[in-house]
C-alpha cells in the first residue's frame, strides 16, 4: 500500500484555513458527520465537509500544571511546597513547581487533590501557598506562607503527559464484593458495567491512522487553546490505545472544562475537556472520521481479578455500551459511562463554533506521531546475586599429567579444597578435591589423570546463586568451576564463598 501518511489529497491545511477565514468552512461534529455519511455516502460527505470536530471529557490522571510563583523578598529556593496542603513537585528551579492531578492533600486526603487545586486556580480562587527551604547564601529565606491567585503567577501551563485515550476497556466485577476502582463502583456478581470515552466523538478514534494529529496540532484544551506536543505516555497505537501529550495556557482556560474530582477509595484526579479538529485531508481520514459507535469496539474486562492481565469477558461496541444495558454472561446488566458524553458533545460543538466563527485555525503537524510503539509492562525483578559477584577469579589449576604429590602440596599451601584440571588451552577436563588426593595417595597412584573426576558440574558467570546451590545439593558437591562458553576455567565457586556472602547480607 504505497500511501504517504498525512498526504493532503482532498484538501490542504491552507485551503481549509482560507475557508475558515472567509467564514465558509464546512464543519460538522463527529456525530453529525457519521450520520451524514450514512445518509449521503462517504464519497460525497468527504468532498463537502472540511473539518470534523471531536470531544472528550473524562478523568485524566496524567495531568498537571507547571507554575512559576515569582521571587519573594528576600528570595527563596523552595525545596518543598504545598498548594492548599497538596504537595507540588519541587525538583525544579527556585520558584518553579509542578502540581499533579493525583497528588492528595496532606490534611484532607481523598477529598481534595491536585486536580482541585488546578480547578480552584482556573476559577480565580485564592490558593494557599506554603513553602520550605534550607536557605542558601543566594536564597536566604527558609519559610513562606501566603495566598496566590492565578493572576499572581508568571506562568501557569497545563501540561498533561497522557490524555485523550483512543479508547479504554469497559469494567465489570466477578467477585462477591463491591469494588471501588478508577472505573467507578463495580457491583458484585457482574452487577453493572462501566465504561469510559465518548465513542463516536472520541478524538483519536476519528484519526486512528494518526494522519492529522501530531506534534503542533492546535486543539481545544480545558476550554482554551492547547497543542499536542507529542505521543502520550503508554501510547500504544498498534493495539488501538493511542494517547496524546498536550499543553496549553492555564490562564486562558475555563473551569467548566477542568474539574477536580475524587474517586471513592481510589484518589483524586482531574477531568479534562479535550477537543480535536480532524481536517479531512484524504479519504482514509474521512473514513475513520465517519466511524459510528457500532464500529468502535472495546472489551469488557473483569476488574475482580487483581492482575495486570485482567481477563476480557467479551468484546463490545460503544453503541451497546451507550444503550445503558449490556449482556454479560447471558444476563442483561445496567451499564453507565464515567466520562461525560454530554460535555464531550458540548466540546465538539464549541470547537465547531470556533471554526465557523473564524476564531480558530488549523495547524499542520510539524511531525506525525509514531504508529508502531508498544506499551511494555514493568517486571518486578528480585535482585539476586550472580555467580560473577560471589566466585573467586583466582583459581589454582593443574594439568592432567601433574604429579599427585606436587598437587597435594599445592592444595595444602594455598588452603583450597578444589583443583580444576585443565589442558594446555585452559579448557576444563576434570576436577580433584582434597578427599580425592588423600585417597589417591593412600592407594599409591601417581598421576592426576588417574584419580580426577572427568564429568565436572560447572557454573556460568551469570547463573544465579540459587541455581548453584541447587546443583551442589543435587550432586552432593561443595565447589563448581566457573567456565566460559568454550569451557575455559575463569573462576571457582564454593559453598564457603556462598555462605560468606549470605553472612554479609543477613548479619548487621
Amino acid at each position: 500500500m504505497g500511501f504517504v501518511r498525512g498526504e493532503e489529497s482532498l484538501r490542504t491545511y491552507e485551503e481549509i484555513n482560507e475557508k475558515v477565514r472567509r467564514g465558509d468552512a464546512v464543519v460538522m461534529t463527529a456525530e453529525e458527520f457519521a450520520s451524514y455519511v450514512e445518509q449521503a455516502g462517504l464519497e460525497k460527505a468527504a468532498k463537502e465537509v472540511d473539518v470534523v470536530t471531536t470531544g472528550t471529557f473524562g478523568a485524566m490522571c496524567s495531568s498537571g500544571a507547571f507554575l512559576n510563583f515569582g521571587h519573594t523578598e528576600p528570595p527563596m529556593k523552595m525545596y518543598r511546597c504545598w498548594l492548599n496542603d497538596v504537595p507540588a513537585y519541587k525538583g525544579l528551579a527556585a520558584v518553579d513547581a509542578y502540581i499533579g492531578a493525583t497528588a492528595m492533600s496532606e490534611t484532607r486526603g481523598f477529598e481534595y487533590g491536585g486536580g482541585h487545586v488546578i480547578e480552584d486556580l482556573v476559577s480565580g480562587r485564592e490558593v494557599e501557598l506554603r513553602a520550605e527551604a534550607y536557605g542558601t547564601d543566594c536564597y536566604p529565606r527558609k519559610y513562606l506562607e501566603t495566598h496566590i491567585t492565578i493572576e499572581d503567577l508568571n506562568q501557569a501551563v497545563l501540561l498533561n503527559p497522557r490524555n485523550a485515550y483512543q479508547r479504554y476497556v469497559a469494567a465489570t466485577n466477578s467477585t462477591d464484593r463491591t469494588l471501588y476502582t478508577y472505573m467507578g463502583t463495580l457491583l458484585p456478581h457482574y452487577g453493572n458495567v462501566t465504561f469510559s470515552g465518548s465513542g463516536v466523538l472520541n478524538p483519536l478514534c476519528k484519526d486512528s491512522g494518526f494522519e492529522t494529529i501530531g506534534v503542533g496540532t492546535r486543539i481545544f484544551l480545558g476550554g482554551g487553546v492547547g497543542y499536542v506536543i507529542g505521543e502520550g505516555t503508554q501510547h500504544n497505537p498498534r493495539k488501538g490505545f493511542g494517547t496524546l501529550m498536550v499543553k496549553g495556557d492555564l490562564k486562558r482556560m475555563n473551569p467548566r472544562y477542568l474539574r477536580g474530582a475524587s474517586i471513592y477509595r481510589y484518589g483524586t484526579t482531574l477531568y479534562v475537556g479535550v477537543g480535536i479538529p480532524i481536517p479531512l485531508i484524504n479519504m482514509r481520514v474521512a473514513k475513520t472520521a465517519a466511524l459510528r459507535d457500532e464500529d468502535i469496539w472495546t472489551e469488557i474486562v473483569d476488574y475482580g481479578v487483581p492482575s495486570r492481565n485482567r481477563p476480557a469477558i467479551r468484546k463490545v461496541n460503544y453503541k451497546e455500551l451507550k444503550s445503558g444495558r449490556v449482556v454479560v454472561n447471558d444476563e442483561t446488566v445496567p451499564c453507565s459511562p464515567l466520562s461525560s458524553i454530554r460535555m464531550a458533545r458540548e466540546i465538539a460543538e464549541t470547537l465547531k463554533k470556533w471554526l465557523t466563527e473564524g476564531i480558530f485555525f488549523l495547524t499542520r503537524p510539524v511531525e506525525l506521531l509514531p504508529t508502531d510503539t508498544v506499551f511494555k509492562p514493568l517486571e518486578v525483578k528480585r535482585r539476586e546475586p550472580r555467580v560473577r559477584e560471589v566466585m573467586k577469579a583466582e583459581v589454582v589449576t593443574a594439568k592432567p599429567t601433574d604429579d599427585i604429590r606436587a598437587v597435594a602440596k599445592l592444595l595444602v599451601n594455598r588452603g583450597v579444597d578444589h583443583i580444576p584440571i585443565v589442558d594446555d588451552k585452559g579448557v576444563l577436563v576434570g576436577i580433584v578435591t582434597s578427599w580425592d588426593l588423600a585417597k589417591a595417595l593412600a592407594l599409591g597412584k601417581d598421576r592426576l589423570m588417574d584419580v580426577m573426576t572427568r564429568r565436572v558440574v560447572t557454573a556460568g558467570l551469570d547463573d544465579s546463586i540459587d541455581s548453584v546451590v541447587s546443583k551442589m545439593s543435587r550432586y552432593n558437591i561443595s565447589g563448581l568451576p566457573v567456565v566460559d562458553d568454550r569451557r575455559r576455567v575463569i573462576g571457582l565457586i564454593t559453598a564457603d564463598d556462598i555462605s560468606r556472602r549470605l553472612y554479609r547480607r543477613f548479619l548487621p
Partner: protein
Amino acid sequence: MKVKLRIVYPTGYVERPILAEAILTTGIKMNILEATLDARSGELIASLEAEEPEIERLVGFLRDRGVKVERIVGMLKVDKDRCIDCGACVSICPVQAIEISEDWSVRFDEDRCVGCGACVRACPMKAVTLV
C-alpha cells in the same frame, strides 16, 4: 402532595397486618420502595401521594398502633453546578432512580430514591448529598 415515609416496625409487630389495615382505612395507595424485614422487626420506605390531612391521618393511625413513622423530606440533593453529567452514579443505583436522558444529561427521580447513599460515594464531583 408527594411524601416518603420511613416506617419502622418494632420487635414483634411484623406479623400484624398494620400496613394493610392503614391502607384500607385511609384509602391511600402506597408504593413500597425498599423493605428490610426479618422475622421480628423491619423497616419500609414507602412513597405516596395524598392531601396533607390524609397523610396526617395515616401517620396517626400507624403511630397509634406502635409503629414508628418518619417523614423523609428532600433526601437527595444534587448540585447541578457541580454535576458534569458523567453517569458514574447511574448503574449503581439499586432502584434505578438515576437515568441518562436523550441529551446525555443525568436525571434523578427523587420519588424513587431510597436514600441508600451509593450515588453519594460514587460521584467524583461530590455533587450529590443526602439531607
